[in-house]
């Protein structure tokens, strides 16, 4: 019963053992810390870099050009903004050379709110990432998806973003969604792969035997079937949408909830099929609402499914303010929470065109 951060660690281990992952690097990524969220503890090819995001992204591109599968970590996505032109360049390597070069690399970075991270540890990156063509973008909401999507990123011959919702890093696998081979007892798993506190010099992880799972890009997952409305989400807000849908079921509202899992390519056929059935669409994420990825999906919904709709499609997203404030009420007011999601779903279910 792993957490997402443990699942990431197990995927990195599998990748370095079986899929030619050569470098996992970034600030505090190597020993002794093994990552600010402990996602890289015990990984043999993990190493510490200077505190230099441009150096990290540049090195990732260069390693990719040299054919080295690598994962470069930006400790918080908020610190990736000074690398935007390098990310654009990474996405350009294949296109600008008309297929001459390719660049396997994964930029792994924690995203979103949920840990009271204040202005520089709470931002989302999905709107920015989806503005950078040439990248595939994975954003899991369960440990098993994190495991399978990260492996897909690592073996892909193109640049990939692996966006990790930090609010879900410590959330455990739900029964039935385990990674095959992982111990069912969380304490047993912790004993195997969590580094001890204090001196870790002699510590060695004991990795469970977990298989290759490659979750394809562009393959969303329907986490709850429903007839009345379609809710499309990902990352921190996904489990909130599921919970709200379960609660609204008591009121007779049956919402279908789709976890996108990857933003590019995006599983539009699944959204389309669902909206055609329900006639109502709600897109939920926590990035700032103007030029938000949900707006893109909403635009496609209007353009392609207008005559299928029973009510205007809606977007519930983060407030368009420069940051997520530290105080509890500020964070709660800045990004969608369970009550606002539930209310948006309820309103849409009762709304008529």
């Amino acid at each position, binding site marked *: 019963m792993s957490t997402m951060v443990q699942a990431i660690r197990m995927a990195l281990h599998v990748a370095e053992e079986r899929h030619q992952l050569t470098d996992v690097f970034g600030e505090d990524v190597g020993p002794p810390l093994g990552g600010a969220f402990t996602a890289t503890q015990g990984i043999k090819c993990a190493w510490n870099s200077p505190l230099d995001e441009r150096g990290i992204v540049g*090195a990732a591109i*260069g390693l990719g*050009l*040299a054919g*080295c599968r690598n994962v470069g970590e930006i400790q918080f996505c908020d610190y990736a903004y000074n690398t935007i032109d390098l990310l654009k360049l990474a996405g350009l*390597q294949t296109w600008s050379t*008309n297929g*001459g070069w*390719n660049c396997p690399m994964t930029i792994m970075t924690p995203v979103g709110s949920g840990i009271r991270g204040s202005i520089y540890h709470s931002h989302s990156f999905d709107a920015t990432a989806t503005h950078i*063509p040439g990248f595939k973008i994975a954003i899991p909401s369960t440990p098993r998806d994190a495991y399978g999507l990260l492996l897909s990123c690592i073996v892909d011959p193109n640049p990939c973003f692996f966006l990790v919702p930090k609010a879900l890093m410590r959330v455990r696998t739900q029964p039935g969604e385990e990674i095959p081979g992982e111990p069912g007892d969380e304490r047993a798993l912790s004993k195997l792969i969590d580094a001890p506190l204090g001196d870790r010099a002699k510590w060695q992880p004991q990795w469970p035997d977990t298989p290759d799972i490659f979750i394809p890009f562009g393959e969303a997952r329907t986490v709850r079937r429903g007839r009345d409305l379609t809710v499309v989400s990902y990352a921190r807000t996904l489990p909130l949408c599921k919970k709200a849908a379960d609660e609204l079921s008591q009121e007779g509202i049956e919402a279908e909830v789709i976890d996108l899992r990857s933003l590019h390519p995006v599983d539009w056929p699944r959204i389309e099929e669902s909206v055609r059935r329900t006639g109502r669409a709600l897109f939920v994420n926590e990035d700032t609402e103007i030029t938000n990825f949900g707006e893109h999906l909403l635009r496609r919904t209007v353009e392609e499914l207008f005559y299928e709709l029973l009510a205007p499609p809606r977007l519930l997203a983060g407030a368009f303010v420069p940051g997520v404030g530290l105080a509890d009420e500020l964070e709660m007011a800045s990004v969608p929470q369970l009550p606002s999601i539930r209310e948006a779903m309820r309103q849409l279910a009762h709304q008529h065109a």
Partner: protein
Amino acid sequence: MSTGLRPVPRAPDADLSPELLLRIHDLMLRSRVLEERLIAMYKQGDGFFWIGGPGEEAFNVPLGLLIQKGRGPAYDYCHFHYRQSATLLAMGADPVNAMRQMKNTATDPYSGGRNFCNHYSLIEWNVAPVSSPIEPQYVIAIGTAIAQKRAGGRGITIVTGGDAGTAEADFASCLIWSSRPANPLPMLIVVANNKWGISTPWAGQHGEKRISDRGKGFGIESKTIDGNDPEISYREIAAAMEYVRTERKPFLLEAMVSRLFGHSSASGANAVPDEADCLKGFEQKLSDKKLLTRQQMEELRHKYATELQEAHRKVRQEPQPKGDSIYQNVFLDRDKVREGK
């Protein structure tokens, strides 16, 4: 040395062989004629923009001759800026391909008509895609150098840029990452100092006496050389490369060069009279040494100019990329995930 580090092997004093001098001259001349042709193409409407390297041939030709070209970490990785046509020709590139990129034809092997001239990219020779931004190559080079350090052997990473680009953070990143005590990198860091940043003179923006002085703070072997002299350039590049190849550590080489036709077509692409011309200077030397007569030089220039004029006519007829090709090569076609590999 004051740094207390292992001294860099001194460049050999011995004269370069007459054959090598003539080869260098041949390539410098051919490169100059190519750049003049690219400018002519621009002025005749056979290209939207020109930027290039006339004035840097005395450094760039020896660099190209000394590069171990090939594909993969066993060979040199090249992270160039956009003034290195002479290096590509010295490596063996066909000048007509530079003209294809100038004319943005579908046959342009570097970008298929997608990028400006002198933005080379050739995976077979480890020439990484040249970017219009003047600094990212200094951090991208870190990655290929890490791969080469791990691979062992004698392959090195060569990164070049201009003096103006050293004001960007990426240059500092390059110095820091290449000299990390945890893993120093086999990287030849080159700055071609032409003393200009577009229209802004170097002298008004940079207080450092020499760019190479910045390497000293990191314990990086560093040197400033006269990049307008091909003999000095050849010897110094050879010595610096040998250091990087064997010691697997970085070397910062600043080459003082000229910019003979301004920044780009944005500033007119006209000859600048008060810059030293390395080709003229070298031809005077060759004439003094009686290796070439003025008439032979003129005949050679005429031959190359005629060849490229002919090529220009042909390139003009080659097809342009189709609009419906824009979605091609966004990703590498292979999708290993879907293939289950």
